[in-house]
Structure formats: structure tokens, C-alpha cells
């Protein structure tokens, strides 16, 4: 394990190498290596069923990797799962607290299980921070999706973990609650907490310090938002005008065009080879219809990555 002992502060919180997991003969996570640094918010993106949840479960000891190795908070993934569990806050994709327990009872249970010192005060503070003082005796099953998500986040923070693993924490949550949620995540990260978060939202992806995109269990790209876009080598042109609808189909069937996406009255056409793309556009559009280059968005990149993954691995 190449862990830098001298600079303990910057030693990676997650450091895994070639982690692999199969269910039956289906490889769900395929040789993924990655590092997450202290205080970093690391976004994990990819289509449904790409192996994000499986990867997270391996990090917190819920699943045993078939092969590969790594450490989480300096503890070996396979040898020391309990030590990892003690300092990791894991928020499951599906609400998995007890619906027949009240908010307070759920938090109290978690605090007891983690043997949190000064339990009563910790739970009181968590409830106050949630703003749930008046509803603390309500059954968790009666809460709306947004409140369930807040309860789950509060529960996985009770034992002051050093790493949060959040599996689609904002799915089905309204924009205001999502914004509050991200404010809180950034505040925690500033205090030194590391966060690994999966999401389908592009705006959330852009709020992460670093990103990884996985498809079919493989890591397709990794880095800051800027890095990811640059590495994709994608050129995008914007075409406006009345005839774009009819143009879309013709563009989609042309070789060399990666994707065509409608944006209101305009379309974005992207491809990996700039010369070929301008050639196609020139021949199809003639002179009267203008097209101009625009910077590729993260979404363009991800869709193109997904297509590439489909072509290569399916």
C-alpha cells in the first residue's frame, strides 16, 4: 500500500486499486481504481445499473470485493470492515430507517449503535439542526421524501464520521431542499469531511470538486469538471432556425455525428472529430443556416461517454 505516512493530512481517505465485483457471471464493478482526498467532494456519476451502489457497498464493508485491494480511512477494506464502519456515514439509496419508529427513536437507535458519547445531547442537537423539534414524535414512515432524506442524512452524521458515502441522496427531493443539502455538504467538506456522492443531476455534478463517470462497471473518466470536459475532446455546434427539426433526423443518421440534442428552438450537435463534423454540417446546411461552436457541457460529455461505453462493452 503506497500510503504517504509523512503527509498524513493529505493521505487519501479512499484509496482503492482494481476493485472488482461480480454477481453470477455479470461483472458489476470492473477493476475500478480511485482516490478521494480529505475535504474533497467526489461525485460519482453513471447510468442506472452501472455499479455505483455496488462500489459504495464495497467501500463500507457491506460487500466483499472479488479482487483488488484498497483502504478506506487507512483501514484495509477486507481485513478491517468494522473499523471502517465506525468512521463512515453511509446513506442508502432507499430510505432504510425504521418506518415504525419516530424520528427521535430512529436517531436515538443509531446513536446507541455507534455508542456516541453524550448521546442525548447529540440527538437533541441533530433534531434542532433538522428543525424537527416539533415533529420529533412523528413516525418516520409518515414523513415526506424530502424529510426522510434529511432524517437519513442527520442519522449518518450522528457519530461524526470522517467520510460520508451518499447514494443518490437527492433523488426525488425538491430544488430548495437540494440546495440546502449542498450548502451543508460544502460546509462539512470545508471542515475536513470527505464525501463520495452519487447523483444523476448535472448541476450537482458541477458542484463536486472532482468527478468520476462509470458505465458497465468501468471507470470512463475522472477529474475536475474542467478535466472531464477537456479529456472528452468533444466539439459542439449550435444551430438555430426554423428547419432544425427536420435536420435532426438527417444529422443523427450521419456517420461522424456523436449526438444531436434539442435545446428549445436550437440543437446542439457534437462529435469527436471537428473536421468531419464541420464537413457534414457544411454539406447539409448550405450557406443560409448558421452554425457556431459552443463549449461542450458536462451532459454532452456524459452522453457521449455512455454511447462509447455501449459500443465498447455491451
Amino acid at each position, binding site marked *: 500500500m503506497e500510503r504517504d505516512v509523512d503527509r498524513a493530512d493529505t493521505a487519501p481517505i479512499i484509496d482503492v486499486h482494481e476493485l472488482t465485483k461480480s454477481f453470477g457471471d455479470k461483472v458489476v464493478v470492473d477493476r475500478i481504481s480511485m482516490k478521494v482526498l480529505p475535504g474533497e467532494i467526489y461525485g460519482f456519476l453513471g447510468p442506472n445499473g452501472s455499479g455505483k451502489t455496488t462500489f459504495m*457497498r464495497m467501500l*463500507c*464493508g*457491506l*460487500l*466483499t470485493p472479488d479482487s483488488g485491494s484498497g483502504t478506506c480511512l487507512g483501514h484495509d477494506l477486507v*481485513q*478491517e470492515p*468494522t*473499523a471502517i*464502519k*465506525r468512521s*463512515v456515514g*453511509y446513506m*442508502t439509496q*432507499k*430510505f*432504510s*430507517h*425504521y*418506518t*415504525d*419508529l419516530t424520528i427521535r*427513536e430512529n436517531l436515538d*437507535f*443509531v446513536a*446507541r*449503535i*455507534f*455508542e456516541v458519547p453524550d448521546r442525548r445531547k447529540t440527538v437533541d442537537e441533530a433534531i434542532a439542526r433538522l428543525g424537527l423539534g416539533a415533529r420529533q414524535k412523528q413516525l418516520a414512515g409518515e414523513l415526506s421524501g424530502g424529510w426522510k432524506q434529511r432524517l437519513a442524512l442527520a442519522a449518518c452524521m450522528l457519530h461524526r464520521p470522517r467520510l460520508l458515502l451518499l447514494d443518490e441522496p437527492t433523488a426525488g427531493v425538491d430544488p430548495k431542499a437540494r440546495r440546502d443539502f449542498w450548502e451543508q455538504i460544502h460546509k462539512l467538506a470545508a471542515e475536513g469531511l470527505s464525501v463520495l456522492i452519487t447523483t444523476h443531476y448535472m448541476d450537482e455534478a458541477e458542484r463536486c470538486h472532482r468527478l468520476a463517470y462509470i458505465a458497465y462497471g468501468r471507470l470512463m473518466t475522472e477529474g475536475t469538471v474542467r478535466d472531464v470536459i477537456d479529456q472528452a475532446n468533444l466539439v459542439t455546434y449550435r444551430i438555430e432556425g426554423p428547419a432544425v427539426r427536420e435536420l435532426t433526423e438527417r444529422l443523427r443518421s450521419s456517420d461522424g455525428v456523436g449526438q444531436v440534442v434539442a435545446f428549445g428552438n436550437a440543437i446542439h450537435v457534437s462529435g469527436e472529430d471537428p473536421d468531419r463534423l464541420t464537413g457534414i454540417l457544411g454539406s447539409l446546411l448550405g450557406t443560409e443556416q448558421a452554425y457556431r461552436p459552443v463549449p461542450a457541457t458536462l451532459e454532452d460529455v456524459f452522453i457521449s461517454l455512455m454511447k462509447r461505453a455501449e459500443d465498447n462493452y455491451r
Partner: protein
Amino acid sequence: MRERFSMGRFFAVVLKEFIQMRRDRLTFAMVVGIPIMQLVLFGFAINSDPRHLPTAVLVQDPGLIARSLVQAMRTSDYFAFDQEVATEEEAQALIERGDVQFVLHIPVDFTRELLRGERPQLLLLADGSDPSATSNALGAARQILENVLARELVGSNQWLRPEASSVELIVHAAYNPERISQYNIVPGLMGVVLTMTLVLITALAISRENERGTMENLLATPVRPAEITLGKIVPYILMGYLQAGLILVAARVIFDVPMSGSLPLLLAVMLIFISANLAIGITFSTIARNQLQAMQMGFFFFLPSILLSGFMFPFRGMPVWAQHIGEILPLTHFLRIARGILLKGNGPAEIAPEVWPMTLFAVVAVAVGLTRFRQTLD
């Protein structure tokens, strides 16, 4: 790195189970309802010594002895004479239709032949398709006949009396001289109810967490399998005592079952029996993939327990292989203990041979449950 058993985490699970148990009204109703229902069914409705069985009589010799015999049979309570038939065909038809259980046929010239010492025949035709319904009445019939003959054959006819046996056999049915089936059934019922409810309830305990997804959260914490397993058993021990208490009170107050032994001893041994049932339930729970499978496993255990333990049918009447299976089941031993303490006044020395098999069963079940407990979602 092995993590030590933590009382704090264990207590957290116990507390949580108590709260959930309290909120789950249906389960709670079942826990109280099942003992009451079983008490009514087995205590009042089911009788292994049926009386007043419908009997038809075909009298072709209306002599004094015939009349006296019918009267004596009626008095015995086993036979209810509600029909008189004239021909054998008629009698046969009644039996075939199931309208009567017995036909008593007193043939022509019965009295005359008897008085001449010709050993006349009397026919008691029984519908023997259900042996347990007829056997006690048939056993009583022979005795009734002898009594009638002894009473009626007096004076010059005395020589016709059946000769007395040269040995007098004294039968004494100790502990239950009146052969009241409730004395036997009600203490046994306590074991049956505990087996039924406790195995089923705990069989659901872990599979429910798996099915609702809460297990994923639980496994992501430092909690140990032993803490979860034992934490789920403890609250139900109290539930078991609640049921046992209910039945014991009913046994005393309603059925007047004697309690000749030490009640504290019974309650102490019951702890082992309850734990054994909860442990097997938890073990099913760790093997089953969902709640339905766990339920089915519970029934799979419950049926042999009821049938082979000696609750429904006499243990010694079973073939040896079935007795061996019965000896494994905790209910078999608990039945002997409960009946031994309540009816016979057994003490620790007498019940000891029944205690250790139950203990062994509980320990093995817990061990299997703990090794089967999946600590990951693999």
C-alpha cells in the same frame, strides 16, 4: 479485527424491538388471541372421551334382562338410545348413513337361551371408522353387561353368573383418576402455543429487516450478529411469559387443573424452552430469503412439534423412528416437564433428564443462527 460484544449496542436492539413490538398491534393481538383461541378449542371443544353417542336398538326379545341392559347402557352416559329399529336391514342402513354410531341387537329368544345356560349372543355393531370415537364406549360396554348380569341373575339363576376371576386386578389411574382430558391438554397447550407463536414471530424478525431494506443500514454500522440476534430474542421472552401466564391462570381458574408441583420451577425451566423456540425462529430467519419463506419454515417446524411431541397422540404409541424425531423437539420435553410438575408434582431431580435436551437444542439453534447470519449483502 474482531469486535467485542457490546452491552450498549445489544441494549439498543432490545429497546428498538420493544418499541416495534408495542406499535405492531396485529402481532400483539395474535400473541394474546392465539392462547385464548387454543384454550377454547382444546379446552372446551375437543374431547378425547366422547359420550352420548347415538345408538339404535333392535330388540327381538323384550325380556327383563334386555330392558335392564339398555337402561344400564344409557346410564353409563356413553350411549344415547334415540332410535328403535325393527329389522337388521334398517339397522345396517342407519350405520351406513352415519346416523348412529352403534346398533345393539338383542336377538330372538335371548332371555330363554340365557336362562337355559346356552351362552346366547348379543351383537353390538359399531361404526368403527373412527376408532377413537368408539373405543372408550366399547370398553365400557363389556363392563356394563357384566354388571347387569350380576344384578339380574339372582336366586335360582345365580349359577349363570360369570365366574369371578381368580385374581383381582386393581387399577388406579394416578394423577388424574377421573381421566379428565383437560388436565392433560391444558398444560400441554402452554407448550404448543409458545412453540407456535414464538417460532413464527422470530422467524420473521431478520427476514423483515432484509425485506424492508433496514438490514443494509444496520450492517453498515459496527453492530455484531450476536447483538442483533440476542437483542431480538430478549423482548420475545417476556412475550412468551405473558402467554404462559395467561394459560396458567386459565388452567387454574377455568379448568381447575391441579398444580401440585412448584410453579417457580416450571417458570424457570420455561425460560429454556422459550429460548429454544426463539433461537430456532431466528435461525429460520437467517436462512429464509424473505418473510414468506420464513413463515413456511416456521410451519414446517410446528407440524412435527404438534404431532410427534405427544400433545395430540400418545408418545408411546408412535413407532421408534417417530419417537426419535420427537425426542429432538423441545416441545416433547417441555410437555413432560409441564405435566410432570403440574400433575405429578415433579421436582428438579425428576425433570432433569428432560431439561438438558431442550438446552442442547437451544444452544445448537443459536450457534447455527449466528454462523448463518450474513454480515454482508453478498
